[in-house]
């Protein structure tokens, strides 16, 4: 009986430790991906603004269709907020970013960048808008490169680290 209990506990410990490790590894894997999606979104936005002068709500509809969750969801949410007619366009985007960011792997530094952009979107001429977007795009590229480096360093590490920590815990406890 005792043995069965012990081995069950050991299994649970190893399993959960492995899961935690995988989750952290996944976080490292997703972040550069999502940053790339964001870059893609901003490039689309830049094109729409500079060539077609499409108003922001229309751009967001396009973005929410073309870009995968959870990044695409941010724009869909912004549109939804805007259609209620209670906020300004840039406030709608800011709120959507702050709420939507929880379901992404982005960090507060990334959010800061996006919020700055949201604050200046729609406030200037086409060339000014494009400049703003390019600036954020450049920052995003840097962030993405760093994230990619981190991923290479940490993804495999955490994948095994979780499992190994679980095993070592079990050994210690036994």
């Amino acid at each position: 009986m005792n043995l069965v209990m012990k081995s069950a506990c050991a299994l649970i410990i190893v399993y959960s430790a492995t899961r935690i490790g995988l989750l952290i590894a996944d976080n490292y894997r997703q972040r550069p991906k999502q940053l790339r999606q964001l870059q893609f979104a901003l490039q689309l936005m830049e094109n729409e603004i500079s060539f077609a002068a499409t108003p922001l709500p229309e751009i967001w509809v396009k973005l929410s269709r073309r870009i995968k969750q959870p990044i695409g969801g941010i724009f869909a949410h912004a549109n939804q907020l805007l259609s209620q007619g209670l906020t300004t366009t840039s406030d709608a985007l800011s709120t959507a970013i702050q709420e939507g960011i929880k379901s992404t792997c982005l960090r507060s530094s990334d959010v800061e960048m996006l919020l700055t952009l949201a604050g200046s979107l729609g406030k200037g001429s086409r060339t000014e808008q494009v400049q703003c977007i390019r600036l954020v795009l450049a920052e995003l590229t840097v962030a993405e490169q760093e994230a990619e480096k981190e991923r290479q360093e940490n993804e495999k590490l955490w994948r095994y680290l979780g499992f190994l920590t679980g095993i070592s815990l079990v050994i210690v406890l036994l």
Partner: protein
Amino acid sequence: MPNQKNGTSAPTSLNTIVSLFPPAWRPAVYRVLNETVPGCQEIRLRVNQYPLFISAKKTFYCSRQRISQEDLMFVMDAACQGSLYAFEEELRMGYLTVAGGHRIGFSGKAVLNQSGVERIKNFNALNIRIACQVLGAAAGAMQYIFDRQQQRPFHTLIASPPRAGKTTLLRDIARSFSSGCQLGVRPFQVTIVDERSELAGCYQGIPQLDVGPNTDVLDGCPKAVGIMMAIRSLAPEVVITDEIGNPQDVIALQEALNAGVAVIASAHGRDIDDMLQRPVLKDLVQAGIFERYLILSTRRGPGTIEFIYDANHRVVKRGDFQ
């Protein structure tokens, strides 16, 4: 003269006005538009002042609160969907048209470039002109501007001081010729050259007001260029345009007359003598191009027709009808 106004397209389009305002303002604005100042034509919003509602009979300050810069920015944001860059041309011209055909004019700091005003920023005042379509506004006038013998519209000039209903009348004339009406007027092919987006109230290119089924609208197109374009490419029988007054307009109008197109236009002016004082209009009036002149006033509300003259400035009909 029977007054055949069928009423206005009020409720739906008032909602688009109300939704331009910040949420806190909406109940008050809704109340004022529906109860305090029915038939409101203009809403003026100036920073640090009370909003002003103007109708033909009444001016009313809504003393709820003074307008703040944020309120103004909210209205602008709602009007241009938060995308100033998409309205660069409008920002240069100083006005834009929103859904429902209402026009918002604005003032602020002008940003200059080599060729003139590039755009306006830091808005300090907005003037919302509520598009109010009066279906049947032209019913009384139609029989005087239609040549029954030749079955074509007369070349007509409508003149009045501002806010006397020129645009409303012109719009309904367009609609009446385009759809045909009881006086034996068959439907004509009409082109509206709508330089200031007021006649048809185009929003994203689509007319928001009823200008008839056989009407083409050249939206935002300079009159002189637009009239020539229309004659060449749209083959209109009637060209309708607002507020003529440039020398180029006159040349284009003459071109239209030569092409056998009926022209119906409007201009600022109290009466014929007043127009004879004005440099460009003088030539037009003296040349005897127009066969009918409609002089409007606000004596019995906007759209009161005071006089109808013929080409030789003889009174065809002493008005006082709408």
